[in-house]
């Protein structure tokens, strides 16, 4: 059933097993599975069915560190959350993303790839990718330095094509379910502004809700799940801990820390030699490039990452065109004359490097002194990068260039500022709007905020869903993992956990 808090918070009757705060991919996935198991769910959405100015404006925040998008731009505060404008690319984290790495401080999850693997098929169904059938990676040649990332769903796509496919918009796709469900009550325009805590037991007994027209409400449930996106989850936890003496995951000042993004630099053109005949060693790659929709992904191998202390990166090679190199791509007029090959003979395409940011305590989500219309402190983002983050982008690009040279496949451009290892302010860095960390998963409160079941350290019944719990981010787009984690959390709440 869908209710609306506009005009007054509705009178909710009966007992809810779970109150989920936020109706994005994590919140709706959780609601679907809990409802399927017969649990009664209250789903609170701060926005309306579609984006409204008064809701979206509450996503404004302050940029305190590295230059970044305005904080209301990369996320949507409405039914379906940020899935309302996502590109739809679905990828899985690598097996080794979950493991500790000697040169990456705070790396290693308390769960493994195998803990999420049972949820692949269900996640694929929810995200409509078709089933996942692939081996993730395979060596690109016999040197063991470069892998082809070969993630393929039964739709015969390596991942969603942003141009040719229509990603799942959770607010639209699952609207009929939410309308018709007898297990799920969705309340729109319900802004959670705080928690009620039983001081004796430490249990969260309720949440306080404000409406846009000044009405107030209280909600009770057996357990509560923050599914508001990484920035808002940390913001709400920071507010809770200010009231409650840092006993909810912030025993060691970890709430909001280790915020991570996927870094990218566009390296512009690459080319592949034209004569790709079946008798040539490059024929196999021609086949791969032709199948690569929309991109062919080449990534330094796990062995190479560990040897060099790099994080997980991937060079994305866009589809090849038959056009020769454009003159603008050859800055010096006599440059090509000095080379042994000719610019007229090649396929060309565009490439970019996407890299994992190391967990970094200094990169964090904060509360500022400014307050919003409900009296809550406005969020601040102090995004900080480490020199190793940039070095990894540079070295991984060169590693892929070496592969192209070694095999005779082609050559590629590189952003000059990256070659020169300019300071981050002078690099043309871009970000994917993938907000990870801030409520990271860890064995104890020393290094994180939630445990392996996504329960907030020190809490009895407060959980976090979404990419805020990521301990590390790999290079994969996070939504598929977000859905896997939400399904696993649902199993835990139902009591089905392995």
């Amino acid at each position, binding site marked *: 059933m869908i209710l609306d808090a506009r005009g007054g918070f509705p009178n909710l009757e009966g007992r809810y097993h779970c109150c989920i705060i936020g109706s994005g991919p994590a919140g709706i996935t959780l609601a679907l599975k809990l409802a399927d198991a017969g649990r009664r769910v209250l789903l609170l959405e701060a926005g309306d069915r579609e984006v409204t100015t008064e809701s979206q404006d509450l996503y404004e925040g302050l940029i305190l560190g590295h230059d970044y998008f305005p904080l209301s731009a990369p996320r949507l505060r409405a039914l379906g959350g940020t899935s309302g404008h996502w590109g739809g690319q679905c990828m899985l984290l690598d097996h080794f993303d979950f493991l500790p790495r000697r040169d990456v401080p705070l790396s290693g999850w308390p769960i493994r790839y195998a803990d999420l693997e049972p949820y692949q098929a269900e996640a694929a169904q929810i995200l409509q990718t078709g089933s996942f059938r692939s081996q993730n990676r395979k060596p690109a040649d016999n040197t063991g330095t470069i892998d082809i990332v070969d993630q393929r769903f039964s739709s015969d796509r390596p991942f969603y094509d942003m141009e040719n496919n229509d990603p799942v918009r959770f607010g639209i796709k699952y609207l009929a379910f939410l309308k018709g469900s007898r297990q799920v009550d969705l309340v729109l325009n319900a802004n959670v502004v705080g928690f009620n805590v039983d001081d004796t037991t430490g249990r969260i007994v309720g949440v306080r809700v404000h409406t846009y027209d000044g009405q107030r409400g209280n909600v009770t449930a057996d357990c509560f799940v923050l599914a508001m996106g990484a920035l808002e989850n940390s913001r709400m936890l920071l507010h809770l801990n200010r009231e409650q003496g840092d006993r909810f995951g912030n025993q060691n000042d970890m709430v909001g820390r280790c915020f991570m993004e996927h870094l990218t630099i566009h390296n512009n053109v690459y080319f592949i030699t034209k004569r790709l005949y079946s008798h040539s060693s490059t024929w196999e790659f021609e086949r791969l490039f032709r199948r690569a929709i929309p991109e062919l992904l080449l990534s330094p191998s796990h062995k190479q990452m560990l040897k060099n202390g790099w994080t997980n990166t991937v060079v994305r090679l866009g589809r090849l065109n038959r056009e020769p190199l454009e003159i603008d791509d050859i800055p010096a007029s006599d440059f090509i004359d000095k*080379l042994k090959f000719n610019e007229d003979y090649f396929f060309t395409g565009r490439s970019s490097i996407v890299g994992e940011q190391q967990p970094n305590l200094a990169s964090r989500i904060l509360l500022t002194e400014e307050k919003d219309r409900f009296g809550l402190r406005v969020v601040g983002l102090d995004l900080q990068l480490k020199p190793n983050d940039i070095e990894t982008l540079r070295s991984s690009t060169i590693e892929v*260039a070496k592969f192209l040279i*070694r095999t005779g496949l082609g050559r590629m451009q590189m952003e000059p500022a990256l070659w020169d290892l300019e300071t981050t302010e002078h690099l043309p860095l871009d970000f994917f709007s993938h907000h990870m960390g801030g409520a990271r998963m860890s064995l104890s409160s020393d290094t994180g905020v939630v445990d392996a079941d996504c329960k907030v350290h020190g809490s009895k019944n407060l959980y976090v869903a979404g990419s805020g719990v990521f301990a590390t981010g790999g290079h994969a787009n996070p939504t598929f993992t977000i859905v896997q984690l939400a399904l696993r959390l649902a199993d835990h709440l139902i009591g089905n956990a392995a």
Partner: protein
Amino acid sequence: MISKNNPLDKVLEPNVIFADGWLLDASDFITEKRK
């Protein structure tokens, strides 16, 4: 005139250099004089 090679030769041990925005191999450059 030097004939330009295509497909590219394989280079077993690349020596990557950065030239005019390109990651090339040191052997990519013509060292002989043009006739």
